């Protein structure tokens, strides 16, 4: 069952899930989980315009084009919220539906010329990844092209979090204090938004715009239930990413269903398990403790 294609697919799933989990942690801690959702939708026009301008569907075109749009999205949300006084959730809703709609219109307008369809962008298809390998001049195949985007991305994200742990965690916990000791809170906000944009877009081909949100939000939320310190939470994101990609793939091939869908479902199942059985605040555990206390008091 685990041939080389399967291993590449699982590996890609792991790369996507861990990049999203690490960055998503900082979004979730800032109570900005839905900004990830917004960015993942709003980059659609960027992808279409990038394709129309260059005529290429290669990741090296798509990722920067959509990444720029992601930064634009977070900037518009900020401006609407800060300067125009629109509620933060409303400004997210206004911004991403508008940009997403532009993307849909562009696709239908150039339907004949564009080898893109909403289905592919929205749902992705990780199973096709091995069909697009990186082949060297001498004929050696180095595996799916996306892996060669996602791997450096994960390394970059990990290195960035390691080096800039202080400003990233401090601006998430207490932005007023962070500003008071001279940390540029706005700058780090934009860095995080930019990183989320690039990661979201790079994850498109494999899991699509909707399911990437599962990785950005569900993985960090699960890790948060299981840990009391941020470094542990980030480590758990990597572990969860591994479990999700393996179990998701196995479930998908067993049931013969969408792999990305199965991976997202797997993350949902893990969240429920953590919610019920977390040793810290798991519901079952709490109920058990309560009961044994009652028995003890009798």
């Amino acid at each position, binding site marked *: 069952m685990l041939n080389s294609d399967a291993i590449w697919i699982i590996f890609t799933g792991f790369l996507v899930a861990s990049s999203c989990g690490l960055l998503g942690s900082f979004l979730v801690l800032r109570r900005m989980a839905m900004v990830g959702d917004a960015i993942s939708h709003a980059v659609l026009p960027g992808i279409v315009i990038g394709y129309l301008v260059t005529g290429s569907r290669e990741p090296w075109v798509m990722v920067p084009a959509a990444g720029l749009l992601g930064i634009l999205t977070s900037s518009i949300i900020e401006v609407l919220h800060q300067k125009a006084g629109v509620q933060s959730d409303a400004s997210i809703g206004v911004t991403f539906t508008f940009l997403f709609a532009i993307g849909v219109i562009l696709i239908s307008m150039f339907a004949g010329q564009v080898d893109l369809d909403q289905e592919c962008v929205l749902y992705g298809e990780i199973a096709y990844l091995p069909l697009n390998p990186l082949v060297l001049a001498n004929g050696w195949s180095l595996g799916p092209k996306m892996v060669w985007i996602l791997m450096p991305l994960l390394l970059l994200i990990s290195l960035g979090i390691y080096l800039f742990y*202080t400003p990233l965690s401090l601006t998430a916990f207490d932005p007023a204090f962070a500003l008071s000791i001279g940390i540029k809170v706005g700058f780090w906000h934009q860095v995080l938004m930019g990183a989320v944009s690039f990661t979201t877009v790079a994850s498109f081909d494999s899991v699509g715009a909707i399911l990437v949100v599962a990785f950005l939000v569900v993985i960090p939320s699960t890790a948060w239930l299981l840990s009391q310190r941020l470094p542990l939470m980030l480590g758990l994101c990597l572990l969860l990413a591994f479990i999700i990609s393996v179990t998701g793939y196995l479930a998908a091939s067993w049931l013969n269903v969408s792999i990305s869908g199965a991976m997202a479902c797997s993350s949902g199942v893990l969240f429920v398990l953590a919610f019920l059985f977390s040793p810290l605040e798991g519901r079952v555990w709490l109920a058990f403790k309560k009961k044994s206390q009652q028995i003890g008091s009798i």
Partner: protein
Amino acid sequence: MIIQVEKPVLEVHDLTVSYHQKPVLWGVDFSLPGGVMAGIMGPNGSGKSTLLKSIMGLLSLSGGRISVFSKNLDEVRKKVSYVPQKESVDWDFPATVKDVVMMGRYGHLGLLRRPGKIDQEIVEEALEQVNMQDLRNRQLGQLSGGQQQRVFLARALAQQADLYLMDEPFVGVDAATEQILVELLNGLKQKGKTLIVVHHNLQTAPDYFDWLVLLNQRLVASAPFEQAFTAALLQETYGGRLNMLSTLAQHMKKEQFAAREHR
């Protein structure tokens, strides 16, 4: 009653701040001497927190300028500690008590350097001062309101600043913690540090402060406590509110009492 001082630690010059074109602070102009514990008081929405945030450069000013230790804040940030309202942060954040106190060292460390042995010792000492050393590995979510405030104060102590700006440190705090905090703040004052505290309890104010800033969008008073804490100025600050009258009466009684004692 606005008394300007020579060699001020803090100088606020003609400060105006507005939110969404609505002015919150109007032409506020005062200076503060070193080594005092100053209270900032005024009714809700009078701009007390806004004043602290403006001093810390967290807001863009519509007009005026502020100097700290006769310099621009950016040059002296390491000497200034800001304690936000504890409600402004999410106490479910995955961090321990010690993690938060260590944040007080980052202003000295810069972005890339990791805390060293000296920083660990300073943090440990700060934890002991607020009597939280046994809870150093406790997760934030498990703390009471009073313990949260002690963590914030320990973080401020770890900053080893000369000027402390505190936004309502006694709100939502049990009596025991308030006592610990007040003793600590007095200790800091005795070491020559300057403290500026947003406060709203008129009853306890005379026990805590030796300088008073009265604020109601405009500056009503900035003077040594006894000169500013008068019925007329409090009336001007709070307006003629019914619930104020009893407090004022109580205060007047206390004043007479003190005067009699004096004789």
